[in-house]
């Protein structure tokens, strides 16, 4: 799955790092580092983080549609 965080919005409250520690981690006091392509297995964890983020900064691709193969060379 794919994730991007709008780090202009993010205020470093770390709810995501608490709820999905395999994907989001704090780097220093308030900078956020995250895995932009976590394993599909973490989808539920990430969904909880998305819901908990107080500023709705986390964007995830939609579950029901994988990018169609052949659309782009990287579509795996």
């Amino acid at each position, binding site marked *: *799955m*794919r*994730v*991007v965080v*709008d*780090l*202009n919005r*993010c*205020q*470093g*409250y770390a709810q995501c790092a608490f709820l999905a520690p395999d994907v989001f981690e704090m*780097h*220093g*006091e*308030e*900078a956020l*580092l*995250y*895995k*932009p*392509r976590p394993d599909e297995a973490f989808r539920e964890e990430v969904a909880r983080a998305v819901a908990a983020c107080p500023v709705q900064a986390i*964007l*995830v*691709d*939609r579950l029901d*549609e994988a*990018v169609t193969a052949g*659309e*782009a*060379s*990287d*579509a795996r």
Partner: protein
Amino acid sequence: MPADGYLERLKRDGRIVVVGASLAGLRAAETLRTEGFAGTLTMVGDEPYEPYDRPPLSKGVLLGRTTPDHTALPRRTALEADWRLGTAATGLDMAAKRVRLADGEEVEYDRLLITTGVRARPWPHEGEAGLDGVFVLRTRDDATALHKRLVDGPRRVLVIGAGFTGSEIASACRERDIPVTVAERGAAPLVGALGGVVGAVAAELQREHGVDLRTGVMVTGLEGDSAGRVRAAHLSDGSSVEPDIVVVALGATRNTEWLAGSGLGAGPRGIACDAGCRAFDIRGIVTDDIFVAGDVARSPHPLFGYQFLSLEHWGNAVSQAETAAHNMLCASVDRRPHMWVPAFWSSQFGVNIKSVGVPSMGTELLISQGSLAERRFVGVYGYQDRVIGAVTFDQARWLPFYEHLIETTAPFPPSFPTVDRRPEGARSVPAEFPDPSVPTHGPTVTLSGYSPADRRMTFTPGRH
């Protein structure tokens, strides 16, 4: 022909071409589809990859937390686009409404969106730039190549230019315990974007983390060994450094060459557009079928005296792309202006640095919360007695408040008491920006005057 009839047909079976398939191009395409565009959508991109995110390339990727091929951007909606990836646009015929592609094909459009962004400014001496071990960092391929060499455990990395990208690269090297020298011709890192007072804090941060920081110097030449690998760099103060990797971080050049001779108002400073993202032609007349967004655009901003602003900012690309896409499908009365307040983030040496507004327009700086010495503060920039920008070091949660002050042109210095105000926040000091006519290391905000045409300007690239 009633305009709404035309728009209806455009939405139903028109042809929209997006040139530049990155952040702005993708977000615009998604907006076109969610706003009901059902016609043919062509996405032209010269990179062979689907749209990916660049900020991780100088952060998580170099730290090994993720890989360059894992940065593809999430899709919010199905695009059903005709993707022409790995194919550059090479020309534009405005009269025939056609984009020429590198493979010789031509694509016709009813509406065109240009989001060709910028590219890294290479080391100016071609022979030296071609030495093995000399890198720039803008693309996925750049990041792959650089990361591979960092993993090999270089003896020393030399970063030329201490803007945001250069500083982030240096930070990643130190975190990997790689010896690193940073050469910056300004007085401190980040001076172009944040001024000398805040730059001094960035300099302390670098030195504390073991960076060999050399300021006020230029790299005058790179030297290779007999096998063509870089082995030394000579500096203007007569000293030299012996790196086996050199990263050139001297800012960016706008990707507008493909528009040369097209009649569009495109040049080294970008493509001028109005507040509604419509491109100007070289006569200064606004077009009605060509739109621009993202790093390649320069657009007038009401909060900053309607000067044209070029912003190399992630958030600007997103916001301007959404506005452009919306306006592409609208009658004039329903169009929206792009009024985004500039905002930027960077993380380096464990500190989260964020800014809003245009700090580089500021002449005065007030530390309104926290303290420079603790590297935890809010700095407010003033210009002609109003608040024009703000920066935070590990104080991001206060930023929306300052954004509001900028939006409402609040007076500077701010008259209210603030949480955690220290003695140093009692009065403002000069913000210490270098002379803007001397580009240092590619500032990420460029003010480019009032003229939509780009003909009269002479461009002085950041010579080092």
